[in-house]
């Protein structure tokens, strides 16, 4: 939660700076966003490669539960596609791109800004922060409505870090490994799915 507040803080600080014209991005003479993004991707990649070993504990899980990341991705995209039908000003791939953040607001909003501009990037940031907040606050309710897997699914890519403590509390300790595996897999899909839907 603290991490989210810092991120929102930087975003708001940026809005203020942009509003009052303190900083002009075009004045750098090079694409600072792109360079920072490339460096970020390198860091994310190093993190993923470095973490691959963490997945060795998975053998104890019911093999059917290994489908959970797929279920999360399919369910999210289905929900977003249905919603997109009611948003005539927004194309279906755009809405799917926002939904494919799965709560990973930093990366997805940065990508979407790069490909589709700051307006959709802002929607992505807000939508994915909302997803994390819904999970943090709504996990007990989700458990009662749709069972122990749903807080993990709702957490999306965050089920391995920011929402893991609440998932462990609400669904139970026996779901922690599944939750980490789920977060890791969904997390990994974010850059691919977001760029895919942005390119449609």
């Amino acid at each position, binding site marked *: 939660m603290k991490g989210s507040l810092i991120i929102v803080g930087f975003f708001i600080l940026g809005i203020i700076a942009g*509003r*009052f014209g303190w900083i002009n991005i075009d004045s750098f003479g090079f694409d600072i*966003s792109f360079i920072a993004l490339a460096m970020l991707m*390198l860091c994310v*990649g190093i*993190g993923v490669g470095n973490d691959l070993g963490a997945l060795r504990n998975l053998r104890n899980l019911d093999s059917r539960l290994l489908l959970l990341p797929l279920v999360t991705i399919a369910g999210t995209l289905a*929900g977003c596609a249905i919603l997109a039908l009611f948003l005539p000003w927004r194309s279906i791939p755009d809405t799917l791109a926002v939904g494919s953040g799965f709560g990973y607001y930093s990366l997805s909003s940065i990508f979407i800004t790069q490909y589709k501009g700051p307006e959709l990037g802002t929607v992505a940031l807000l*939508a994915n922060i909302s997803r994390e907040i819904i999970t943090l606050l709504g996990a007990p309710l989700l458990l009662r409505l749709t*069972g122990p897997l749903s807080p993990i699914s709702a957490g999306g890519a965050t089920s391995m870090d920011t929402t893991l403590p609440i998932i462990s509390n609400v669904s139970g300790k026996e779901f922690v490994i599944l939750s980490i595996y789920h977060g890791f897999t969904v997390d990994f899909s974010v850059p691919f799915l977001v760029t895919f839907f942005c390119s449609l």
Partner: protein
Amino acid sequence: MAAGITLGWLLRGKKLPFLGKLTNVLIWVLLFLLGVEVGGDDRIINGIATLGAEAAAVAVAGVAGSCLLAAALWKWASRRRKEGAGK
């Protein structure tokens, strides 16, 4: 990113304490820049309420869709080998 994964694999098992920090700083820089772009764009500032509502709707739709499917998966996985267990 592929370069990063390869590099990370080569460095596996090594502690990389600076990596998380560097990642965070880059994310802060990029979101600050996104903020700058948003702040300089009157169209976005004026439409922020609509964009926020749209964002909330996307979040709810995503959570609802994934939770419903997760419930179905849980039902299926809990059935174990009970033969003829209907819906």
